């Protein structure tokens, strides 16, 4: 398995993006926010392959844009307005989720615990924080209201996956958490190991997770297909998707 990976030169970001793309079903309304190159590419990849009628919603408000060139510094710029068919700005995307009609929201956070609490706010006391985070942006209102919240995080360590979060920014309809090591799923009120990336191992997941790793069976995240990789490289020739690694 590992040799295949080396032969094909898969990046962890490629595996994560493909894992996220496959979670998008055809016809679903899908949103991502700022600092989200990987979800941006996951949505575009899904639309190019198995989910052509997924609806791509984003902060600039372009519905189903076809950006010519992505930007390295942003996933909230005017390129997500190019060739869009309609305007549906951020405020209305939030409204859509509030009334129960946003299918998928890609969101992040800083700390996650085994019962599905999300902290995107502070480490330490809220009023005198040891570390002040950028803020959860949409997380606090979208995780409870989107039909499925897909969390992604480029760090997987014991400070990220903790026994109990410092602060509950929100909790809600978490579907999956995609990390550089694995995919968690949320079931019956707790996080379970869903699949392990072929670039990692069960032991590595356990060593880097602050709570007991539970699973029903050991499954591996499927590798990107050739078709997926071809499209990814065409859409992102400068490899911005790997910027956080």
């Amino acid at each position, binding site marked *: 398995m590992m040799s295949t990976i080396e032969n094909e030169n898969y990046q962890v970001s490629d595996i994560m993006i493909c894992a996220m793309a496959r979670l998008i079903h055809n016809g679903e309304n899908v949103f991502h*926010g*700022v*600092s989200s*190159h990987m979800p941006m590419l996951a949505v575009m990849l899904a639309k190019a392959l198995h989910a052509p009628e997924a609806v791509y919603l984003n*902060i*600039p*408000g*372009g519905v189903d844009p076809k950006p010519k060139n992505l*930007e*390295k*510094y*942003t*996933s*909230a*710029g*005017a390129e*997500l*307005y190019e060739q869009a068919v309609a305007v549906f*700005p*951020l*405020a209305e995307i*939030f409204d859509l*989720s*509030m*009334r129960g009609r946003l299918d998928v929201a890609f969101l992040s956070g800083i700390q996650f615990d085994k019962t599905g609490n999300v902290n995107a*706010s*502070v480490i330490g006391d*809220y*009023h*005198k*924080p*040891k*570390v*002040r985070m*950028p*803020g*959860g*942006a*949409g*997380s*606090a*209102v*979208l995780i*409870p*209201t989107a039909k499925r919240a897909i969390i992604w995080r480029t760090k997987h360590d014991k400070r990220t996956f903790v026994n109990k979060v410092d*602060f*509950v*920014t*929100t*909790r*809600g309809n978490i579907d999956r958490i995609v990390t550089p090591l694995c995919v968690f799923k949320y079931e019956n009120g707790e996080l379970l190991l869903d699949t392990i990336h072929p670039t990692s191992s069960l032991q590595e997941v356990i060593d880097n997770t602050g709570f007991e790793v539970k699973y029903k069976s050991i499954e591996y995240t499927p590798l990107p297909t050739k078709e997926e990789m071809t499209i990814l490289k065409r859409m992102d020739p400068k490899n911005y998707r790997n*910027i*956080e690694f």
Partner: protein
Amino acid sequence: MKTLNKLMSLTQAVELIHDNDTVGIGGNVLHRAPMALVREIARQEKKGLHIVKTAGAMDVDLLCLAECVSSVDAGFISYETEYSLAGHYRKAVQNGLVKGNEHACYTVISALRAASAGIPFMPVKGLQISDLIEVNDYFTRIQDPFSGELVTVVKAIVPDVVIIHVQEADKNGNAKILGPKYDDVLLSRAAKKVIITTETIVPDSKFAFSQDKADIPHFLVNAVVHMPKGAAPCSCPSKYSIDRNNLDAFKAIKNKEELKDYLDNFMTEDYRRY
């Protein structure tokens, strides 16, 4: 027909902002932030400002470094991935100099919608289980009088002044945003005063004879400043992308003294009259 000419200099426009004002800022992260106005606020050493923005980056970071800020109500304050965190904002909050009032971006929008409709609060569906409700005095839960169920509400935020950079405006204040409008139109409706900087001044007749009318009508606007490159080093869709050299220079700044040099270097450009 007589018209109200609201054209003025950057300096005059920023004089409309007072210490301790609540200031809404247009644009989103590094896009169409009204940076010339932000720089002039820093030069005029405004104090105690209450900043409001859904997602801010360099604008809020610079104002925190310049010690103009008392609190920030926002859903997200950070550069995006490539330029990483807003270090000056973070430090100011951690040192207790700035109160970081955490919102979801949507609760900022809801608070501005309340202001725009002249109501004291706005129910918010999404904020359900969250420590944010308990630790912040601008959130609370009330009973829906029709069903008896609990609903979270956010207190209205009424900006004293809103600063917005656009691509086109006429001298009376009719202003047009090309490309993504972000929350700027809402901000213009929520605020008591609106200050516009614009890439170009278009003739009074332009919007009247176009299908593409102004997004912000003149009667909401108090000042128009002709300011090409008024968003730089941030981007301005259809005009320019970010100025990477300048952003790098700013990101390297360590303290208020270095910021002064940085601001001085912009004076020729910011004070040029067109």
